[in-house]
């Protein structure tokens, strides 16, 4: 954090207030982001949140409600979290539970927790409070008593998680238990049979297992967080004793950032692609001047910084984040380095799109988004040059621009730190994503060689498989509702628990569609959620991943819905189209399939289809298999 001189500090704040009062809300937002990059602290957090509260009507912010149940004072960290959230376009309302009342709040059916609306819940408890014997008086315990204590604590955590999940659908983020900075038996703790560290670790291992057994329960590695920033620096014992605030002032921002790493994926504020510069970002030096033997990328200093950067990017690719290049260079020089330099961990096959030219970077980023078929706000951009970063921020405020420190050795950490790359579950599709894009390029090349679309469709030999919700598909289905923006008729976002609840409710159906063709397997790429209401089958959600838009898969899925609805005795299909900034590709879907406009509301249009009069046929070039089976 840089501390501004009072004059600079006041000037930027005055300018922001002037921009707000003159109605320049986007400019004010950009200056608030600048202020937050310069000084993200407790004081500036209050300034940033108070100004965003004045701007919230003008900016398209996503409202989100977070509840924090706690055994210690968290209030000073809340404005930091709200400020960070505002800058990610999330209008975060935070409710903090009563001090040390988390157990009653969770276990009591009549608790406010279950009678107020919340989108996610954090359970922030510490070893000192829930395991005082293991924490404070470990050497008083016999090995049997240590074992009993670890079971007691692990069982309490499991009981709270179970009780919460029985009463609420909301995602639950549970802090795990921190280790002491000085084990009670000293260095011997690392090898003793009766070890304090091992006891706390076993509680955390149990928490890991319990979380995996429940939907929408996530563990925040509080111990890892503290270790990363230094245990001795993290604590403030005096504030703990006087104000029940155990965390030192300078560390609060790290707790807030860690919470944000969960909020970003929960609210869908994530990057689907990372666009990187080359010179001095992916390798050290300038390829056009230093040549292939002069650039640095190896396991020694200083090339190791760039290899670490590439390793971080490879790890992100394994999470399903697409990589792309945007660099001012001669393409031949750059590609030669990428292909033949012995130190590169990333090769051309790792990049889903490349723009190596001398054009403006903002324009290249727009082109990359359009080539990858994702929104511009799904791009993250990393470049060592602050001027390029600033010009991208100015031209494309919706792009996440990763701030890099001066020292290249810290670059990889900046990538790994960013909440926009976090995912709370990884589907098989995520890990295969780059392959899908390479196959897609082959399809596009093939498409150009056909005279008619129909001939191309026949050539593709598409096979689709429709199946009811299963345990294996639940994660991917929820993910699609969270992430799909373009071919999405209602853009309703659901958590795994909400999807499961609907599938279990009488009258509701959740169906997904997988597609493969001669080029490869697209995986699970679409879904429909419907609800029978009398003799009408209402389409609650209908969406397709952008990968299969324009392949008539939507018609195949709709034909299945119509056929099943008719078989259940429905006379009509009905559905809303709720327009958003991004779902224009789905706008004419109902009209094109013979639906009649029934009503025009404030939020969108309602369409119906008479199942007794008409029929929706599956395209002859798609072989449709229908899996039945138990919905569990």
């Amino acid at each position: 954090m840089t501390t501004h001189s009072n004059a600079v500090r006041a000037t930027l704040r005055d300018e922001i207030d002037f921009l707000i009062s003159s109605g320049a809300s986007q400019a004010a937002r950009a200056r608030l982001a600048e202020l937050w990059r310069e000084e993200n602290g407790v004081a500036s957090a209050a300034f940033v949140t108070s100004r965003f509260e004045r701007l919230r009507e003008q900016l398209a912010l996503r409202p989100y409600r977070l509840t924090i149940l706690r055994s210690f004072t968290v209030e000073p960290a809340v404005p930091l979290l709200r400020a960070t959230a505002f800058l990610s376009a999330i209008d975060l309302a935070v409710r903090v539970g009563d001090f040390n009342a988390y157990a009653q709040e969770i276990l009591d059916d009549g608790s406010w927790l279950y009678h107020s609306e919340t989108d996610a819940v954090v359970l922030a408890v510490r070893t000192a409070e829930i395991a005082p014997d293991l924490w404070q008086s470990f050497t008083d315990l016999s090995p049997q008593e240590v074992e009993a204590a670890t079971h007691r604590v692990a069982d309490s955590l499991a009981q709270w998680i179970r009780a919460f999940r029985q009463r609420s659908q909301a995602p639950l983020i549970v802090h795990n238990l921190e280790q002491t900075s000085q084990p009670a038996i000293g260095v011997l703790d690392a090898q003793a049979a009766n070890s304090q560290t091992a006891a706390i670790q076993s509680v955390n291992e149990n928490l890991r297992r319990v979380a995996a057994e429940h939907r929408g329960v996530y563990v925040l590695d509080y111990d890892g967080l503290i270790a990363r920033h230094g245990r001795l620096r993290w604590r403030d014992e005096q504030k703990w004793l006087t104000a029940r605030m155990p965390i030192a002032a300078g560390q609060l921002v790290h707790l807030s950032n860690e919470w944000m790493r969960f909020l970003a994926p929960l609210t869908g504020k994530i990057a689907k692609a990372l666009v990187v510069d080359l010179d001095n970002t992916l390798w050290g030096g300038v390829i056009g001047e230093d040549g292939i033997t002069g650039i640095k990328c190896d396991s020694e200093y200083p090339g190791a910084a760039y290899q670490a950067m590439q390793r971080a990017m490879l790890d992100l690719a394994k999470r399903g984040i697409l990589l792309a290049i945007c660099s001012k260079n001669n393409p031949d020089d750059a590609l030669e380095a990428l292909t033949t330099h012995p130190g590169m961990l990333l090769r051309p096959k790792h990049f889903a799109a490349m723009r190596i030219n001398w054009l403006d970077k903002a324009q290249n980023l727009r082109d990359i988004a359009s080539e990858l078929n994702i929104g511009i706000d799904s791009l993250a951009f990393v470049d060592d040059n602050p001027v390029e970063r600033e010009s991208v921020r100015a031209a494309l405020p919706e792009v996440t621009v990763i701030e890099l420190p001066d020292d290249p050795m810290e670059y990889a950490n900046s990538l790994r730190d960013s909440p926009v790359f976090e995912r709370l579950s990884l589907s098989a599709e995520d890990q295969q994503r780059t392959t899908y894009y390479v196959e897609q390029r082959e399809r596009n090349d093939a498409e150009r060689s056909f005279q008619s679309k129909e001939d191309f469709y026949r050539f593709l030999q598409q096979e689709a498989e429709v199946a009811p919700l299963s345990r294996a598909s639940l994660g991917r289905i929820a993910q699609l509702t969270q992430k799909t923006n373009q071919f999405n008729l209602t853009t309703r976002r659901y958590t795994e628990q909400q999807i499961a609840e609907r599938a279990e409710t009488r009258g509701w159906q959740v169906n997904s569609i997988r597609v493969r063709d001669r080029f490869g397997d697209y995986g699970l790429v679409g879904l429909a959620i419907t609800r029978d209401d009398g003799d009408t089958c209402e389409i609650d959600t209908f969406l397709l991943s952008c990968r299969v838009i324009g392949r008539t898969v939507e018609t195949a899925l709709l034909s299945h819905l119509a056929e099943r609805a008719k078989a259940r005795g429905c006379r009509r299909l009905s559905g809303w189209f709720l327009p958003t900034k991004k779902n224009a590709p789905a706008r004419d879907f109902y009209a094109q399939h013979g639906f009649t406009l029934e009503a025009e509301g404030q939020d969108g249009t309602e369409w119906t289809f008479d199942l007794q009069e008409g029929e929706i046929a599956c395209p002859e070039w798609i072989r449709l298999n229908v899996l039945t089976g138990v919905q569990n």
Partner: protein
Amino acid sequence: MTSTAFEQVRAIASDLFVVPAQEITSNSSPETIPAWDSTQHLIFVMALEEQFQVRLSPEEIEQMTNIGAIARVLDSRPKNAPE
């Protein structure tokens, strides 16, 4: 005696309590600033610790009853090296 910390304390208070800096005097206190409650006082202390890069003792915090007193406590502290 002029205070070197006063302007900075006032700027932090202005951020936290959402009050224009020029309306804050050395006599401003929880009695005169409605937003300055006990939770905000703790947040204020932590903001000061962060900005001045000091750790304030419970005894010092007890003396911090208004803006002037806060500035005096901070003036009496040599600035620590960043942690």
